Structure formats: C-alpha cells, structure tokens
C-alpha cells in the first residue's frame, strides 16, 4: 500500500493535471460569459501576517485569500468546500474577526493579520477549542472542522463583546450564552456529517471554562 504522504502527492498532481487539461481544451463558453479576452494573468505583490509570520507574495490578482493560504503558503488546514461562501469550511480570522477566506481576494489584505487553524494551536499544544472538539467528538470526517473551530473561537468572542444575533431576545440588553445563541451563530458552518450537537457541547464547555 502506498504511504499516505505519497497518496497525497499523487492526488494533488492529478488535480493539478486535470486543471491544466481543462484550460487547454477550453470548453465552449456559456451564454453570457465574455469571449476570447486574452487571459494574461496580472501579478501583484501583497504582504500580510499569517500566524505570527510576515509573508510577501507575488500573486495573480484573482487569488483568493483561501488559495493564497493553501496553494502559496501551503497552510492546508483551511479547507475549500463550496468556494462560494455557503459552507464555512474556509473560515479564518482576519484581524480577530471570522470571515470566509474564499470570498475575499488576497490582495485586499495588505498589512492584515490572519489566523488559521494552524495558528490557533499545534498538535502538542492544542487550543482549548481544539481539545474540546476532540473530547466531545465534534466531527466525523473532519473536513469542516478547521472552519468550525475558527468560527467557534470567534463566536465566543462575539458573545463576550455583546454583539447581538438573530435569536437575541432583547437588543438593548446584554447577550447571554445559550445553546440557541451558539446554534444561530454557527449557522454559517455546515457539517455534512451532522456533528452539530457535539460541536455545541464543545463550545459550551470552552465558554464555561473561560467564565
């Protein structure tokens, strides 16, 4: 049997190869799409801090923050799910706030501070939210998990900061932690395996420990 890391490499090469084929044998363009503009990539430079390290990249302007993290910085913890802001797998923290890294361009983040799942904790030194996800089985396949954890960390901060949600009963009062608040605030992170109730338990435990 092939070693897992070999499999990884193979899979990546296959994907890269398939992409190249598609680009050569350009399929007929759908109605509405603009035809035959010469596709010269426009390169530009951008610098931002990722997980405590400053990076300067020379990238195609089209590169999303997600692709910059995964393909250029090889931080593959952040996942590409739908690539349209619908699933939340690509959630990262930018200047402390959670966003979908697939719906923002890397060039728009000059000077920003980005935290990915790799920056929250390490296998030897887990972030409390990572530890709680393991303890409560907050995942099955694990694909959405980095996004869930980044979102989970940010949600607890948002509740602490008093940012209201759709289920906050009184807009002028303070915001209280509750299962309903967690579920509403986590609705932008889809889990195909349906680990939701365990994710709520993990987040509740971290919130209670934080006090």
């Amino acid at each position, binding site marked *: 049997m092939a070693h897992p890391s070999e499999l990884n490499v193979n899979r990546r090469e296959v994907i890269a190869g398939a992409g190249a084929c598609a680009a050569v044998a350009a399929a007929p363009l759908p109605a509405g799409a603009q035809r035959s503009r010469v596709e010269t990539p426009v390169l530009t430079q951008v610098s931002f801090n990722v997980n405590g390290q400053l990076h300067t990249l020379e990238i195609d*302007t089209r590169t999303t923050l997600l692709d910059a993290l995964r393909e250029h910085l090889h931080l593959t913890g952040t996942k590409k799910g739908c690539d349209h802001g619908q699933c939340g797998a690509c959630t990262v923290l930018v200047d402390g706030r959670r966003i979908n890294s697939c719906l923002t361009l890397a060039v*728009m983040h000059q000077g920003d501070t980005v935290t990915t799942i790799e920056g929250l904790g390490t296998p030897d030194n887990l972030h409390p939210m990572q530890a709680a996800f393991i303890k409560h089985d907050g995942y099955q396949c694990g694909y959405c998990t980095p996004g869930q954890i980044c979102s989970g960390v940010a949600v607890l901060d948002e509740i602490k900061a008093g940012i209201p949600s759709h289920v906050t009963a009184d807009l002028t009062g303070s915001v209280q932690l509750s299962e309903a608040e967690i579920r509403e605030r986590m609705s932008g992170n889809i889990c195909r395996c349906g680990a939701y109730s365990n994710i709520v338990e993990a987040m509740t435990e971290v919130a209670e420990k934080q006090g």
Partner: protein
Amino acid sequence: MRSFTYERANTPGEAAAAVARTPGARFIAGGTNLLDLMKLQIETPTHLVDVNGLKLDTIEPAPEGGLRIGALVRNTDLAADERVRRDYAVLSRALLAGASGQLRNRATTAGNLLQRTRCPYFYDTAQPCNKRQPGSGCSALDGVSRQLGIVGVSDACIATNPSDMAVAMRVLDATVETVKPGGVSRTIPIAEFHRLPGDTPHVETALEAGELIIAVTLPPPLGGRQIYRKVRDRASYAFALVSVAAVIHQDGTGRVALGGVAHKPWRIEAAEADLPRGPKVVTEQLLADAKPTHDNAFKRPLVERTLGAVISQARN
C-alpha cells in the same frame, strides 16, 4: 474568473474617477457578492477599485438628528451599534436575519444595497436571462419560480431583490449619499434607489456609471415597535421567501415594507393608513397589482399572515 487589474483608492473622488476612467471597472468592498459572481463569470470586470481604504467606516450623528452610516460600515458593526439597536431596531433585526456571521463581518452597507438577485437562472449561465444578458429572454417565467417576485414584475424579469437590510432602510426612509466621477455629490431617497425591472432588468439602481455610495443616512428616530420578520426555508442562513419590516405605534398606526416579493423593497405608503384595520386590507392594497406565478402564488397568503403576526407582536 477573468483576469483583472487592481488598485486601492484613497479618496472617494479618486475611486469614482478610477472606475469612470477604466471601461469595465468596478468597485469592490466586502467582495462577498462580486467575487461570488466573478467566479461564475456572471460579472467580468477588467479592473477592480478597492474602496476598503476610503475611511467611510464610521457611524456619525446626522445634523438633522438621524444617523449617517458610512458606506464601508460592516453589517455586523451596523447591527451591533448601540444607537441602531436602540432607535432603529428594525435595521439591526434585518441585518441579523441575513447571511452568516462570517459574511456579515465582511459585507458593507453599500455592497449590501447593491447585491444582485438570487434568481437561479441568473446564476445558471447556460440559461437565458434578461438580467445577465439583455434580450436573451427570461427562463423563470416558465421555470421554477418559487423564490421569485409576485408584484412589480414585468414580462422581462420577475426576480426579487434579496437584501434584508434594504427592506428596513425602506421602511425607515433612508437616503443614499453618493459622489459622481466629476466630484458632484447627490442624495437619492431609498424609494427611488432600486428600480423595477420593466424592460431593462439589468439596470437595477439609480446609480450612474462610476457613481460611488459614500453613506446612507437614517432620519431622526421614529419610535414605535420595530419588527423584522423573515420567513424562509431554514431557521437561519437562508434568503427570505417573504419578509416584513414594520414600525408600529401604540395606536396601531405605522409603516410597513415587504421583502422577497419584488425587484425592490416593496412599500406603498397609502396602504399604511389601514394598518389599524388589520393585515387583510393592507395586504390587498400592497399586492393589488400582484401577478404571481403558479409556483409562488403562496406568497400572497404568506404576506398577509406574516403581516398579521407582526401586527400582533407589536401589540404585546
């Protein structure tokens, strides 16, 4: 995605001039709608002007007693602002009912107003769509139209405006402040900002090419019970089938605007005098000219019942 050049603008005048100067140029704010559409090649800008550095991200008291909201204020920050929560609760509620926490952290006030329809055929580049490709036809008329508009529709397009925020802005009578490429600024009442489809559904707002939104101003607080009720297929993270934004006073008078039914937030001021008489008469007037399809005829009773629920919520 088509390739494009990119620049960061430093002043509103510079941004407007940059878009006017370059054919095919567009502003980019949060990017949550524009990039989504660029990936599908529904939008194919040749040049992007990033407006995030324009310092239009504050909420200030307006001279006439309202609030002036910078175009770049994020949806999260607008919804969480203490003054908005206290005096314009319908706006906070509408924002919080939209999208997800991640998206609201990026989405801006101006970008939200300009988000494009969620009509499935607009998104499907293999299908005719007058909005995406003028003159190609409307696939929704004989297609799946459950989500689409019932009032103010035309033979060319029956799409809805998907913004929750805009419905609240309409019930509050906000004004949109812009600057044109030549540097001239103007204010556009929200009622005149979004257009009905007519035979030019691709023209969605009153904005001219290169015209930049710099702020949205709310008039002085209206008081009353302020409610936003959104009916959707999931309890969270779904676009409205129907929504009601309302400001209702103790004597039962007030204002109401509908989302999910038209190409713009739907409000008929003359119908509001009948609010104390209950939802039926008001709905009859609001939807007098409705032309629902087979698929979306359910929206008429849904509007009436949602409005009824809002009116009784306001009494308690």
